[in-house]
């Protein structure tokens, strides 16, 4: 149990997927301009990443490994994730329009989000067990969401500040993200 908690903390804070592993930066900058969007995106990532973690782990353990097809990991994972996301999107749109409005619209963005793909690959690389995979996927996603929401909070204010023209928008966003990454150094070595 303790190990799992350590794993979770490690994935959320110490090895934060955005700020320490540099995965998922495009949507990080794109969807952090407003708090609402950031929250929606964070939720969607949690949802998809857990699903994707599970399904890729299964693919890897039951198909790729036994048949020695590990070199097909990249292509099979991306296909599986893309199909899964699209399926979920269509499903939500039809059956739960309310949920779709809050969360589903972010799903396409996740298809090509390297955070999802990267987290799945890390899970395999680190040889996690199934339960560890679920926990790490969830925690990575939470870490992503946390960073995104905190960033959005700061960014909402920066958007209103008198940032010099050439620095506006993406440029200042990146610098802020850098400072946030630095602030996350606080967690270094905590696991």
């Amino acid at each position: 149990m303790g190990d799992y908690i350590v794993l979770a903390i490690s994935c959320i804070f110490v090895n934060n997927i955005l700020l320490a592993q540099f995965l998922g930066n495009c949507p990080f900058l794109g969807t952090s301009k407003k708090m609402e969007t950031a929250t929606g995106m964070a939720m969607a990532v949690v949802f998809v990443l857990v699903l994707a973690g599970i399904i890729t782990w299964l693919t890897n353990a039951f198909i790729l490994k036994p048949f020695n097809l590990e070199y097909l990991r990249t292509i099979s994972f991306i296909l599986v994730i893309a199909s899964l996301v699209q399926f979920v999107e269509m499903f939500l749109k039809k059956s739960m329009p309310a949920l779709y409005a809050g969360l589903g619209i972010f799903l396409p963005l996740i298809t090509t989000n390297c955070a999802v793909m990267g987290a799945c690959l890390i899970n395999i690389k680190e040889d996690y067990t199934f339960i560890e995979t679920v926990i790490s996927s969830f925690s990575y996603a939470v870490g992503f969401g946390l960073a995104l929401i905190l960033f959005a909070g700061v960014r909402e204010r920066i958007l209103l500040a008198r940032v010099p023209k050439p620095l506006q928008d993406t440029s200042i966003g990146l610098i802020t993200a850098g400072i946030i990454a630095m602030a996350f150094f606080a967690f270094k070595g905590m696991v």
Partner: protein
Amino acid sequence: MHKQKKYIVSHAPFWHDGSRLTTKNYHIMLAVLIALAAGIVKYGVPAVGVIALSVSTAIFWELIMNKITSRTATIGNGNAALTGLLFAMMLPPTMPWWAVVTGTFVCVIIGKEIFGGLGGNPFNPVLIGMAILMIAWKDLFDFDQALINYDFDYLVLYPLAALKHFGISSIESLSAIDLLSGKQTGAIGTTFGFGLILGGVYLIIRGFVRWEISVSYLLGIFVTAFIFKSADSATYAGPVIHLFSGYTLFGAFFLATEDSSSPVNFIPMLIYGAAIGIMTILIRNIGVYVDGTVFAILLINLANPIIDKIRPKAMGRAV
């Protein structure tokens, strides 16, 4: 067109209580004077050099940036000087000149000006400078190493580093009074605890910094350290050491209270202070850094916009 006297016209209100940014900045500088003087007495000329260089370059960078962005010069409000001064106080007196200059550059330009100047900065500029320097040139912040050539009449020891590297036994001899009266190694302006407390209390009374943040910060440190101590007294140091060593007091009164990066509402201020306190002890006890203050404050600065969303319901608001 008949000639008429021209009057000054503006919308209400027509009164102002006379408070000024400038006053505030200069009073904060005034408040650190005692601790600063203690540091200068202790470390001598090199400390004066570092302070002078830091303050002057901070002003210089701000002036440069004002020119580039063609805004009216803001150095008059004393904020750049204050940034430089606080930054210098957190450095060891042996800091080489290039590190000081880079540091103030980072503080003023990266920390403040690119966010649109004072008020736009979401993080404490001084701490950004500190953090980046600490990451870039770790060795320069090894206070024991840095002060090796000084000869003091007390145990030359940076308590937090000793705690981290040699265990609790190495610092058992330190008393609260010793720590508060500056009998410890550390940065130029952060070792003389009495001076810092005096300055801090002055600022609180004058209303230039908020007591909520300082008090909850110190409480957060105290409680967390106490819990750790009770859990494992052999490994972890007690609250007294944590409160009176490192940047704790300096942080409580002069860093965490920086306006732009701290909350304004009552409850958020308490949460904010306490969270920094807790985070500081966590880093010191289980993290990699010797003194967690810098990163703890930066981290909670980051959460400030979220925390500050807890606010009282405005009058007549429907929901």
